[in-house]
């Protein structure tokens, strides 16, 4: 692989998340902080997985064991992040309730799905980075995978685990890209479930089950990579991505009617006209009302 290929693989995996970051996150300092915090939470979950893996000596070679607990820790920290944010929000509520204007409080209060997107992207980016960084580093030389696996000679033990074709790096790249985007949806759905639990909605557990289950499935399916069934792996991971995004869209209040309206195919009537564009509170032009409300605050103080 050449430098161009290494660059290409990086761009394929991190290109879409990069634009999500640029368009939805980069304008708001608070979102950048939460993005980094998401990455940090994922790192801590990795640390715990590592400690556990290191401690349980007999199971170090058992991949399934490590995999199981790694995902468990990741979901645990997704919840912890939600918990911490909620506590932070309560404190900020008290401040803003007493009539003070604090920048960013609004986005914390009124755009919880956007928060989930931001934090999910943070976790996903870190996960994707750890998945890909060594692959890219190892592939940045001139060779491609396959030769050691093709050597069957006595006295040279090279276990056959490889892929034997030069698409290996691209496959890892696509996998990582899908993973990052799926993390966003997972966080939206997961936090929505947590939120609904707090609000005593009886179906609160559905989202959580979907997230955890699909997380396990998307990892488990990758075992088929050893049998060179990249198509299957990537296909399943892509389906999981789509399912989770559909669900995320649904919990965000999406519907076919909205879809039609958004693309100008159906009437917007019957839908509540948005008072605030949830995805970007700081963008002034599409939301004059929202701006006015803040001004009112200002006047009051």
């Amino acid at each position: 692989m050449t430098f161009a290929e290494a660059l290409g693989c990086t761009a394929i995996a991190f290109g879409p998340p990069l634009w999500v970051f640029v368009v939805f996150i980069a304008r708001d300092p608070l979102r950048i902080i939460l993005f980094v915090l998401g990455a940090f939470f994922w790192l801590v979950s990795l640390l715990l997985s590592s400690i556990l893996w290191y401690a349980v000596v007999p199971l170090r070679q058992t991949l399934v064991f490590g995999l199981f607990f790694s995902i468990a820790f990741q979901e645990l920290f997704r919840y912890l992040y939600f918990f911490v944010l909620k506590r932070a929000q309560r404190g900020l509520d008290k401040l803003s309730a007493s009539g003070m204007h604090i920048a960013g409080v609004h986005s914390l209060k009124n755009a919880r799905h956007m928060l989930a997107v931001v934090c999910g992207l943070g976790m996903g980016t870190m996960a994707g980075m750890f998945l890909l960084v060594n692959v890219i580093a190892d592939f940045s030389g001139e060779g491609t995978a396959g030769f050691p696996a093709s050597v069957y000679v006595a006295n040279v033990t090279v276990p056959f685990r490889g892929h034997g074709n030069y698409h290996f790096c691209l496959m890892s790249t696509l996998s990582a890209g899908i993973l990052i985007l799926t993390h966003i949806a997972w966080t939206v759905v997961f936090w929505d479930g947590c939120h609904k639990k707090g609000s005593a909605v009886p179906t609160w557990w559905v989202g959580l089950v979907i997230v955890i289950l699909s997380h396990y499935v998307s990892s488990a399916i990758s075992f088929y990579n050893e049998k060179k069934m990249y198509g299957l792996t990537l296909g399943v991971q892509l389906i999981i991505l789509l399912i989770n995004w559909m669900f995320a869209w649904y919990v965000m209040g999406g519907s076919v009617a909205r879809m039609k309206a958004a693309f100008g195919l159906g009437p917007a009537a019957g839908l509540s006209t948005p008072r605030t564009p949830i995805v970007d509170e700081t963008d002034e032009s599409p939301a004059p009302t929202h701006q006015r409300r803040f001004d009112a605050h200002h006047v009051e103080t």
Partner: protein
Amino acid sequence: MTHSNFRIYLIAICVVLVPVLTNGQRVADQIYMKLDSSTSQCFRLLNGTHQVGCQSKENGNTGIIYLVESSAELDAINQDSGNYGEYIVAIDARHFDEFASALQRMPSIVGVLLMQRNSEPLGSSGISEDAACPNERTSMYSEDAAHKCDWNPTQTAAGVRFLDWTKPIFLIDNATEIDIIVKSCWETFNKPVDGMAREFPVCAATLTQFMTAAKDAPTCLRRQEMFAGLSGDTTLHLCDPLIDENIIAFLPPTNKTAKQMFEHESVFVLTARMDSFSMFSDRTPGEESAISGVITLLAVANAIGQKREQFSSAARQRKHYLLFALLHGESLDYIGSSRMLYDMNQTKFPVEASSSVKDQVDQLTIDHIGFVLELNQIGSSGGEHFAHVDGTVYSGIKREKIDTVLKDTGFSLADDSNTSRLPPASYQQFLKHSHSIPGFVIGDYKTKFNNKYYNSFADSDNLDAAKAIDAITKVAESSLKAVTNWVANESTGYTIDRDYIKDLYDCFITKKFWDECEILKRATTYLENKAIVRQKTTYIGTQGSMEARSSPIKRIANVLMVGSLGEKLPNVDTKEQCGHLSGLKKNNMYSYFWQLDLLQSDNASYCYQSTVMQTPAQSPAFLIEDYDMTSGKYSTWVESVWAPSVSLKLFLRPPPRYSLWIFLTAMVVLLVSMAICLLLHRISPLLIDAHPGADIGDPSL
């Protein structure tokens, strides 16, 4: 990367969601296969005017593996029908000499893997790395334009070792690794099918061995000095002069105080060289090239040592002396002999006169030398041996002296005409200084070397043991007779111990390592760095610290000489006492070595007093101030230092267009995802519910 970090990396790879990797392995292990059993790489030497040998670029040379068995493959490489660009040629050692100059010349070949299976004899082809006329520049005939010198039958007249390859050559003798290269790499991925070059991916190799010295010896030494001057770091080395020691012994010893001094033409020099070379630093067995002569000389020394007292007193009466000289670095422009003669001219041989020492040896000068007998390649199974003389000397007034010794030895002259020329031999250096020293060179060849592996990595396992031992015994007996007659005027009472020759042959040549037999195992008992000493290497090498790194052959030969010629001192019971004796400086006639009695089997060690000494084998070129390195008078060889990152790895190379394709795809992905994100941003107020809290009724989450 620290250990713990690595663990975390590992777990990240293993555990995170897409375990495409296996536990404990990096992707790199699935890409690159390192072949590291071979430690033999061609390295660079430089002399006053040239650089020779090999090197890779700093990051290694990469090319597609191509197996060359005939010129057809070379044509295929020339045409490059597979568009592979650069090639690494894998070639059987048997074909190497044949294609060496083509491999060196072709620019699309960026590296060579030389494969030598231990089990397979090299056959009749032969490989000598030396030139057709070895040591031509420093030869006594170098200015003789009419002289046709082609002693060494090789297909590469300049000598494979003396080509400037500017590409790496790795020697591989591990059968498993050869199989990997030939079968797994070449046959599986690269070998053309029905004459058609294979499609990518194809198997490639990266050879890394970077040399720090370039151009020529003076340039390198000057740069080294400048670096040291700038940084004050004298440990930085780019290249080092070749240096070791000759082993000499006088019998009887001279003593200036006792007026026992050399007289005009009173010294008989029995000499043999103990070094050979190869492109590959640790592959210099030199069995026929050097060791056969060394064993012969050691056998003569042993025979005389048995009757040391008798020989010495007889010699003293005639005021004649015998000088044993095992010379080092002779194969690289006569380093040892040129230094010995240089020291003689400076009256510093064997040591400088000193006022602080009571009993001193006399200084030997060139006119003390009465005869030179050189043993050069003895063991080849041809059977017959010839004496080689210089025609001018032989047709001069010294003819009678030569004939006398010749008669003692019983050898016939290879050429008795006045145009007779000496083969490459240390004796030439004597004649360069004084063209009237009688002498001859004994070898198992007449007009061309019988040895097809003269100075090469393959000069090993080619001799027939029984015939070689016979030949060595025969030459040793003849030489012994000549020596005793000349020096002591006695032709009887001295016998060559055939068993001793057999033992030495077994140790030096038959065994895989030098300490695998009894006598050399005992000989190496007190030597440092045993792991190095046991290696079959005769290359002179460079010296960081003299003692630790000096060549195995010299250190072992020294012990054997001391064992043969030395006298056990009674009343010296410890190594420390023995070492103390050398430090006393009461005399410089004797040296003292603490060692086992090689011919017994007990563990008793003794302090040996002997006349065995080491004299420097470093070219005078590095001593003489403002010496003109281009003059060709003395050897100017320096060895380049190489970067420690030496490696050979194999891998598959993807199609060259693949990376371009990936890159373009990535650009498309970037553009499309940007468009989608901007679109989503625009329509998201419509697409989703803007009041996430509204449906629950709890605005605070």
